[in-house]
């Protein structure tokens, strides 16, 4: 499952969609909008820009690479775009396998690869009105 969407997602629904016979573990990672910036300033909201078609291709490749690399049975990546306030869901990674260790490792791998290579950009909107793109 690969999705880029504006609306919120349900972690439970993604887990249910992944479940199949032979699985012994589903590890999920949920990224949440932080209420504080790296330098300690209060954040009012974050906004994501995305090159959607290219990001979907990047997600598909990351998912397939992780399935092969860690011997997963299935994997899911769901990423939101648009605007989120602190506490809202941003991204969900799920790795399903026979045993837990490879699922933990695959979650870490997928999240790192998304942050390294997927064309998604996060802007922080601070309480004082300042806006800044992160990573640029």
């Amino acid at each position, binding site marked *: 499952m690969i999705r880029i969407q504006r609306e919120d997602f349900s972690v439970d629904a993604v887990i249910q969609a992944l479940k199949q016979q032979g699985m012994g573990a589903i590890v999920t990672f949920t990224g949440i909008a932080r209420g504080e910036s790296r330098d300690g300033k209060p954040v009012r909201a974050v906004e994501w820009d995305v090159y959607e078609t290219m990001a979907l291709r990047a997600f598909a490749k990351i998912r397939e690479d992780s399935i092969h690399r860690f011997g997963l049975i299935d994997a899911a990546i769901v990423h939101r775009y648009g605007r989120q306030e602190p506490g809202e869901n941003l991204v969900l990674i799920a790795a399903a396998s026979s045993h837990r260790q490879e699922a933990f490792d695959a979650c870490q791998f997928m999240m790192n690869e998304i942050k390294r290579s997927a064309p998604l*950009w996060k802007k922080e909107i601070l309480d004082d009105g300042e806006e800044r*793109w992160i990573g640029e």
Partner: protein
Amino acid sequence: MNIRFLFFASIREAAKTRELELDIPGGNVNDALSHLETRIPELRRHLDRVQIAVNEEYSDRNRSLREGDTVALIPPVSGGKS
């Protein structure tokens, strides 16, 4: 030939648009960027720090362009934080 440019994040804000089509005489990505910067001078100071994707594949700037190609200006991604 017609080239479609796509802009994201800070580049979109500098360009004040998400996309732009330009009719240029031909050449490679560098040539196309020169035409683009003539059209939108606000992009000049950003061009050194962007990666280029042609038709959704990362590409170097010597790549020759064809009629109808889509050239995306990709600023550094948000990477490696949380």
